[in-house]
């Protein structure tokens, strides 16, 4: 087997791959739902960071569709020619105010769109002529006479090559004008959609082989547009019709205005279709993640149970739905990143220093109960999972040491018992009890290792998934893609990746620093809950908001939307209402990628209902208010200060 593959998962951003993503793209399993070949309505694709939004729209764009890497391209490809436009926020937000009338900025924005998208159209023709499509040749482009476009601007040249150059000059001109609009000469503004429509009409008229061509504009990062720019784009969306359809890609909660520049607003279903990428990708994320993982190895010449040609072909999606294929792909991913079963995790405790921690916790719980029973009676190597949860059971006031001992005896003897019976004590308490045995700052916890754990930690975020793989393989000397990464190495990698992603929250938009502080505050509450000796409410990883003395202000609700927009939190409709009389509510789930850092569960098991005033403190409270809140929970949950993770809580002090 060949060279080392340590950096093979390092490139996990679409930007790093360029515009032609043909080689790297795996057609997602929900692709047919996008209905690309027949649908004629605009699409709005929403999804958080890392869910593959940009990768998808780049795949749909002409540079990938007419990629030089494709050996054959069906002629139907011209029915969907994707034009990709990523908004240049830095420049666009300069186009407001500054003593210039609004209508002029509106015209300038439409002008830039016309230039950029016309360049895309010209680029798509060139790419087609150089591709395996064989529908166009270079001479066809050279013969084009675009002189009718002079109706929009007399200075526009009539040949293909000259128009490409002129469009670049127009960008320079508008750039100069925007930088100094009172001094630089004002360009003659091209009308956005009309100009593009005319350009397409001329192309189709002179190149009959493109008579069925449709151009689909994909505007990425729509959220970065200012309101008037959004209204202009919305107008184009509303009036989209073949052969020019506008589509948007954006983060959640970014579609904050449906207004157009006319009297009518956009209407869902009538004017566009929504596609929630995260919801779709979550459907069978493990398989998709495993395929992406194995594609990287296949591209490096390793023998793996995926065929890149099949992964790239929407027509062969059904082959990937085959249960045998699915099993082989998942199995290989699990071989590379093996995890431990619950029993294995429990057994391993007895083979390590963690056993001493278990013993000490049992002794502590017995001492509080003033029980004379020897701690060793609760350490049973042949029922390891039950042994792991005994400290939690012994810490509960309602359960006697004798009861726990009796249940252990029954379990060991194969008799009906509460550990595995109706009460299902092991199932309900294992993860919380197991995490409690590990100190977050020292020994890596194997709970976070394994392909299955990585999939759950990623929760549909491909970038997070690939980073977990990258951090893991990078820690193995000379990893060649054919051997398993030890689970402790993976656990260490998960903690490192989690830490890095937590820190990265600071980069999430204008509220990044506040979002970071909020994540730390909320994670601290969950981490404290996780350290409860009784584990009576284990695995709290989400919250809902109840009444409190201080009500949430509109700005707080905006902030919560911001947390969802940047995928720090996920929101779901409340699933379990303990009190049926209460109205249905929203639950907020902390992104599981932060679980290894806070040393908490990554599963959505239980929630805590925070009072509105507590949420206010987490969002905008002073440092002292946060400290008081954490101390309150520390007391309520009977968590001793020494139980708290030093790296997380050292700043709280003991005063």
């Amino acid at each position: 087997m060949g060279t080392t593959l340590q950096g093979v998962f390092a490139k996990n951003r679409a930007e790093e791959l360029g515009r032609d993503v043909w080689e790297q793209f795996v057609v997602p399993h929900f692709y047919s739902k996008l209905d690309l070949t027949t649908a004629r309505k605009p699409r709005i694709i929403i999804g958080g960071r890392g869910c593959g939004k940009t990768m998808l729209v780049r795949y749909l764009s002409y540079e990938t569709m007419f990629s030089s890497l494709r050996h054959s391209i069906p002629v139907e490809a011209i029915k969907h020619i994707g034009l990709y436009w990523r908004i240049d926020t830095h420049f666009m937000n300069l186009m407001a105010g500054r003593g210039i009338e609004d209508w002029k900025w509106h015209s300038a924005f439409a002008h830039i769109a016309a230039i950029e998208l016309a360049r895309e159209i010209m680029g798509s023709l060139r790419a087609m002529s150089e591709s395996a499509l064989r529908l166009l040749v270079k001479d066809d482009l050279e013969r084009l006479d675009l002189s009718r476009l002079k109706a929009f601007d007399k200075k526009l040249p009539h040949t293909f090559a000259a128009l490409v150059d002129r469009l670049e000059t127009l960008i320079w001109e508008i750039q100069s004008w925007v930088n100094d609009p009172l001094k630089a000469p004002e360009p003659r503004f091209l009308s956005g959609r009309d100009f593009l429509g005319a350009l397409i009409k001329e192309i189709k008229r002179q190149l009959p082989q493109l008579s069925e061509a449709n151009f689909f504009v994909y505007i990425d990062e729509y959220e970065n547009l200012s309101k008037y720019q959004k209204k202009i784009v919305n107008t184009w969306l509303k009036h989209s019709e073949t052969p020019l359809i506008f589509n948007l890609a954006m983060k959640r909660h970014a579609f904050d205005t449906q207004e157009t520049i006319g009297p009518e607003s956009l209407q869902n279903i009538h004017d566009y279709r929504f596609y929630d990428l995260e919801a779709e990708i979550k459907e069978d994320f493990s398989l998709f993640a495993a395929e992406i993982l194995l594609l990287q190895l296949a591209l490096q010449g390793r023998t793996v149970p995926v065929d890149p040609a099949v992964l790239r072909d929407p027509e062969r999606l059904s082959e990937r739905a085959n249960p045998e294929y699915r099993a082989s792909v998942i199995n290989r991913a699990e071989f590379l990143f093996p995890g431990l079963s619950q029993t294995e995790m429990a057994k391993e405790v007895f083979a390590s220093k963690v056993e001493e921690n278990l013993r000490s916790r049992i002794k502590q719980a017995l001492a509080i109960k003033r029980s004379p029973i020897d701690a060793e009676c609760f350490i049973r190597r042949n029922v390891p999972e039950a042994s792991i949860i005994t400290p939690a059971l012994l810490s509960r006031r309602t359960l006697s040491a004798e009861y726990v001992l009796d249940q252990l005896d029954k379990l060991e003897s194969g008799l009906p018992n509460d550990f595995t019976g109706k009460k299902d004590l092991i199932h309900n308490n294992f993860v919380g009890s197991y995490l409690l045995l590990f100190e977050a700052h020292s020994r890596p916890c194997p709970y976070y290792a394994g392909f299955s754990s990585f999939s759950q930690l990623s929760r549909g975020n491909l970038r997070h998934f690939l980073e977990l793989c990258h951090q893991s393989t990078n820690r193995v000397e000379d990893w060649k893609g054919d051997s398993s990464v030890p689970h402790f190495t993976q656990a260490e990698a998960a903690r490192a990746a989690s830490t890095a992603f937590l820190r990265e929250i600071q980069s999430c938009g204008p509220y990044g620093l506040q979002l970071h502080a909020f994540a730390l505050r909320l994670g601290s509450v969950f981490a404290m809950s996780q350290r409860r000796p009784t584990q009576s409410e284990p695995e709290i990883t989400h919250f809902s908001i109840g009444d409190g003395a201080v009500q949430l202000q509109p700005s707080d609700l905006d902030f919560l939307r911001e947390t969802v927009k940047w995928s720090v939190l996920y929101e779901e409709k409340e699933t379990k209402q303990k009190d049926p009389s209460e109205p249905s509510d929203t639950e907020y789930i902390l992104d599981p990628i932060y679980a290894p850092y806070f040393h908490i569960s990554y599963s959505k098991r239980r929630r805590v209902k925070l009072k509105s005033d507590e949420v206010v403190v987490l969002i905008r409270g002073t440092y002292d208010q946060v400290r008081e809140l954490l101390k309150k929970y520390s007391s309520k949950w009977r968590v001793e200060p020494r139980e708290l993770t030093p790296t997380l809580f050292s700043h709280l002090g003991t005063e």
Partner: protein
Amino acid sequence: MMQIRMQESIRENGLDIQPWDLGIIGEPLDERGTAAVAFISSNSNTVVSARYDPDGFYIDIDGKVRNAERTAELLENWRGKRIVLETTTLGFVEVFLCSKALIDLKVTSFYMVYVEPKEYTTVAGGRLLDKRHFDLSEEVPGFKGIPGATLVTTERTAQRTAFFLGFEERRLDVALVSQGFRPSEVAVIFGVPAFTPGWEMHSFANNIRVIQDHGLSGGIHFCGAENPASAYDTLESLYDALSFKERLIVGPLGTKPNGIGAALFAASHSEVGLLYDHPRKSRRRTSEIARWHIYEIVL
């Protein structure tokens, strides 16, 4: 050909200066800022304050407001006079706009004062978590164009981007995420030697994750953290190496002296773009004074 003559001293009275006709100051936020403003006040006949508004794109000098690109109109009456910019308290954009205005007004020289801090209170080199992270932090306005120095950045345009780096890796991360540059076209510049030996490690440690994460491969350069001439020269060498049609975009996210070098370079090269995030500096972010610097800009 622009020249930057530099002198430094550990005490203000160790500087060899002549009084100025006009001193332009910003808002002092810490001990060194207060000392710098007092120094300008006692050595200038007239002192005015300047403030740039990144949301309105205007500059306010001594209560007179103009669009940023019209800054020269506010300074033209001072043509031929001795002018000093107090760059400890002025923000990067004010330094750039005033420098550009003075260059456009064809002055023969002007001065800048910079007071180097002894300690940064917010340097968190490698330390993951402290009270500061739990405390409320200010909103960061984000990258917004500066009139007169903003280029359209698309993946279609041939360009190279050079970021001066400081302690806050978040700023580089935001720039890269928001602009979507091609990683191979992004160079980074570290301030080495740093103000104080060892500080460069904070800058390396904090930025390395972002550099790796985005796969930046456009080159790593070094220039003295307190040396605007070195920053200018570094940009000049990058600029000279551009191929036909390539443009240079500069992200001044490092030390103020590096920012001064970037401001002067962009002010004297109209085709160079700036990328800046307009951070609001917190109060008392530094303590004590290490050294005083005077930079004479000769045009």
